[in-house]
Each structure stands twice: as C-alpha cells, then as structure tokens.
C-alpha cells in the first residue's frame, strides 16, 4: 500500500541504495515477512488443504470413475433438485432484498431498526433450529401442516420445505448487500426523476436499478452459493428421500456414510468448483466495480 519512493523523496538514487529509511508507519522487514508467512501458512493449512483434499479424493481412482459416479441417476436427480431449489430461492430472495432495501433506504418510518434486526435474524439462528422451526410450523403434526398435507400440498419432506429452508438461511444476503449501497447513493436522483414526471416503475428501472446492479449481482452470487450448499436446514426438512428430496449436499452425506468415497467427493468437487467460480466472479466484481461495492464491505 505504501510506495517506498513516496516516503523518501529527498534522497538521490545513489544515497537511497546506502540509506534504507523505514517510514515510522511501517513494521521492520523482518516483522513484515514473519506476519505474511504466518498469514499465508495459516490460510494454506486451514483453507487450501481441505480444498485440495476434495479434488484429490474425487480423482483418487481416476477422472473416469469420478465422472461415472456423477452420471448415476441418483446423482443426476440430486443435481437437478439443487438447481431447481436455487432457481426458485434466489429470485425470491432477490425480489425480497430489493423490496426491503427500497423501503429501508428510501423512506423514514418508526421501527426501521427493528425491521433490520428481523431481516438479520436468520444469520444468528442455527440452520438446524431454522429447519426445526419450519417443521414445527408446516409439519404434519401441526395445525397448518396437517391441513396442508390433507389438501395434498405437503411442505415438509417435499420440495416447498427445501425451498423455504433455503430461503430462510439466505434471507438477509441480497438486502444486506443493497442497503449500504443505496444509503450511499441517497435519494436525490430518484427525486429528480420523479420531479421530471417519471412514473415510480420507470424511476426504479432506469435510475435505481442501474445504480445498484453490481451490488445486486454480488448479493445474488452469495445467495446462490449458500442456497446450493445449504445442509443443516435442508437435512431437517427434506426427509432425505433418495432420488426425490435429496439435494447435492444431502447426497454427499449419504454417499459418504456408505463409504462411497469417490462418489461423495466427486459430488463435493462439483460444489467446490461452484464455490471457486463464485469467488472468481466475486473478485472480478470487486475489482471492476470497487467504488460501487466499497460500501458493502463495511458491514
């Protein structure tokens, strides 16, 4: 971050070679190297090693075995189900996130802080407790759930339950990315458009949306990664019915418990690759739109 030439501008090049001034706001090179080594070593040990193991175990018997295990009907149905759940949960959360961020940033009302607390609540609730709460509300033992099952629309141990669980755990993602950006941008542009006679929808589509599109994409990205990978909440509500309600993470657990290591790690490898892709896109977004996303990094 600190350009050393900027900190020693009064030295001629020859003098600089002999006098090594260190700015008072920097650590000694030795301390610096030591800290970098600890940080990189720690990350390699804690984060990169598990990632490497996923791919090493998946390809333990060759790439062909890994691909074969993914082509099995059970694996394919899990992949389809996970894609379907994400395809519903992510747009639902995007719509909610935009609506919540619009209300919170464009209006003043009492109870705003309380509303934000409620939106953040899923972050501090264990996924297992979230799944349990959904089972208690919609399970066949409850009043509402019993009626739903009787009318042929079961939620728990079926697709709607998995979607609800996925939406619950990813609930704050989009709203949390949008709110800081929209606060930073204020209301004046929208107010100007309204004064000039634009309709509400037109203001949103032509003024607000272009301003928040990168933050929205960023939130959707994080939401998608979590929705596809959610395990605890989905494990509780899905019933783990093979070929029907087993998502990719649930299938990983089943395969692993059956000692089908290559199959379990191959599917894990697909999700790990998705995680890496998410990080890549996130880094590109942060790099190209750093100014717009700067606000979101503050939470």
């Amino acid at each position, binding site marked *: 971050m600190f350009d050393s030439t900027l900190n020693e501008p009064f030295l001629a090049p020859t003098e600089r070679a002999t006098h090594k001034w260190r700015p008072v706001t920097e650590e000694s090179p030795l301390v610096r190297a030591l800290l970098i080594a600890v940080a990189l070593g720690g*990350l390699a040990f804690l984060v*990169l090693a598990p990632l490497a193991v996923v791919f090493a175990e998946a390809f333990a018997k060759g790439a062909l075995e890994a691909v074969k295990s993914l082509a099995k009907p059970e694996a394919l149905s899990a992949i389809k189900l996970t894609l379907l759940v994400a395809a519903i949960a992510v747009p639902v959360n995007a719509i909610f996130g935009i609506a919540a961020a619009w209300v919170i940033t464009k209006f003043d009302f009492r109870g705003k802080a309380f509303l934000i607390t409620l939106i953040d609540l899923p972050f501090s609730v264990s996924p297992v407790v979230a799944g349990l709460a959904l089972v208690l509300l*919609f399970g066949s033992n409850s009043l509402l759930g019993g009626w739903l099952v009787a009318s042929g629309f079961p939620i728990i141990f079926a697709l709607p339950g998995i979607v609800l669980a996925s939406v*619950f755990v990813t609930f704050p993602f989009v709203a949390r990315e949008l709110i800081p950006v929209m606060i930073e941008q204020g209301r004046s542009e929208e107010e100007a458009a309204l004064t000039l006679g634009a309709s509400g929808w037109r203001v949103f589509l032509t003024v607000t949306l272009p301003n928040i599109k990168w933050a929205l994409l960023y939130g959707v990205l994080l939401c998608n990664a*979590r929705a596809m*990978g959610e395990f*605890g909440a989905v*494990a*509780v509500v899905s019933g783990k019915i093979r070929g029907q309600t087993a998502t990719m993470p649930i299938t990983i657990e089943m395969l692993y418990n059956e000692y089908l290591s290559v199959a379990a790690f191959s599917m894990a490898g697909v*999700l790990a690759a998705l995680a890496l892709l998410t990080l890549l896109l996130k880094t590109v977004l942060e790099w190209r739109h750093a100014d717009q996303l700067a606000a979101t990094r503050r939470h």
Partner: protein
Amino acid sequence: MALAMLRAQKSPMPGFGLGMGITLTMLSLIVILPVAALLAKGISYGPEGVWNTVNTPRVWAALYLSFRLAFLAALFNLVFGTLLAWVLARYDFPGRRIVDAVVDLPFALPTAVAGIALTALYAPNGAFGSIAKSMGQKIAYTEWGILIALIFVGLPFVTRTVQPVIAEIESEVEEASATLGAGRFYTMHRVILPMLLPAALTGFALSLARAVGEYGSVIFIAGNLPMKTEIAPLLIVIKLEEFDYGGAAAIGIAMLLISFSMLLVINLIQIWSRRRIGHV
C-alpha cells in the same frame, strides 16, 4: 406489529406500500411465523417441560461442548483474522488479490463439503491425521476435530469486518504516535489495536454465532459420541428423528436463549468500547 408504526413519514417516493407489503409478507411467512411456532411449541410444552428436557447430563454436555468450542474457535479467529486483515490491508506481496479471495472460501464452500474434506484430512489415515497418529495423537473424532471445523467456518468474519477499518486509519495517527516517541510495537498495541477493537468484536460475535449453530461441517469430523463429542444441533436432529418435537423445540429454545444472551453481552462490550474510543 402495529401497521401505524410502519407508516412512512411524508415522502414523494413511490412504492412504499408495495415494498413494505412484499417485505412484511415474506418476513412473516419465512422467518417470523416459523420462529413463533418454535416458541409456541416451547410454551405449550411449559417451562417445566423445557427445563426437564434440557436438564439432563447428555443435553448439558452437548450445550457445554458447543458453546465452549465455539468460543475457543471464535477466539482463534479473532487473533488470526485480525492478523490476516492487517497483512491484506497493509502489505503488498505477489498474489495478494488471490489470497484476499481465498479468505472467503469458507463462506462459499458448502458445509457438507468442508465436513468430509476436513475429516479426510484429519482422520488417522489422512494427510494430517497420520502425522498426528505417528505422534500418538488423534484429531478427527475428538474435540480437536470439532474445533478445527468451527475455526474453518468462522474464519472470514473477523478479517472481513476489520479489513475496511484498517484501510480507513489515517497515517497521521501512527505518525503522531511515532513522533511522540512510541516504538512500532507500542503504537500497534496502544494506538492501532484499540481502534480495531469494535470491528474485531463484531467479527468475533458473528463467528461465535455461526460456530454455535454449525452442523454440516462438524458432524462428519465429530464422531458424535454422546457426552463426549456430540454437539447441540445434532441433539435436535436426533430428537426430531425420534419424533420428539417438544424435546427438539426445548433444546432449540435453550440454544436461542444462550446465543442471544451471549450476543447481548458482546454488543454491550462493543458499545462500551465504541464509546471509549469515540468513533469507528
């Protein structure tokens, strides 16, 4: 919730009704109603019923294990995460941008994937586990394994909250400290770290909350022996599999109560430290 409370003060902006309608409907359906159902189950079970479920050696052991290890993991992440944030914000080295992205991997990697990967790594026949075994130690299927999984899932929180604060520290503050004769270590210890404390505590609280409720990455590596390596969320799953909904709700409520009181204490410490430092 009183709707009158949520009426917007005079604003020319359109869309309050629609936006608030979507927000409140979804919030109620997905978050408020299920959580209310959980609390209602606890109430119908009676405080005595809840207490009798929780007050068994097996449940206490699980709660104690979950909260103790979550605290230790968050503590590790507090120190390592702050160090990581400092290195990423202040030092330039080749591949810094990649390292910065790698920090977020525990957020992006599904917990079940992390769980089986850590187990493969630390099991007695795994890459790290076999080294431990040759020294007569066991990591997977012990508390150490659980601790490593909890450190993994909470790793990015402190770094992500502290890093932007470091980027905003004015270099004048450090220069002033140096001018007044403070060494670099003294400046770090007495000037910079106190400025980072509120953000670091926020990260600590987030990491703690995450670790307490973590399930996916832990159950594979834990071994799940009752009284020894059985975490509280697993007990809820076990009660549910036995169709003991009241028992599951009781443990869920106990976890919520302990989590919220811990977060409350941390928030109070945070407010106190913010006040002491005056800004950030």
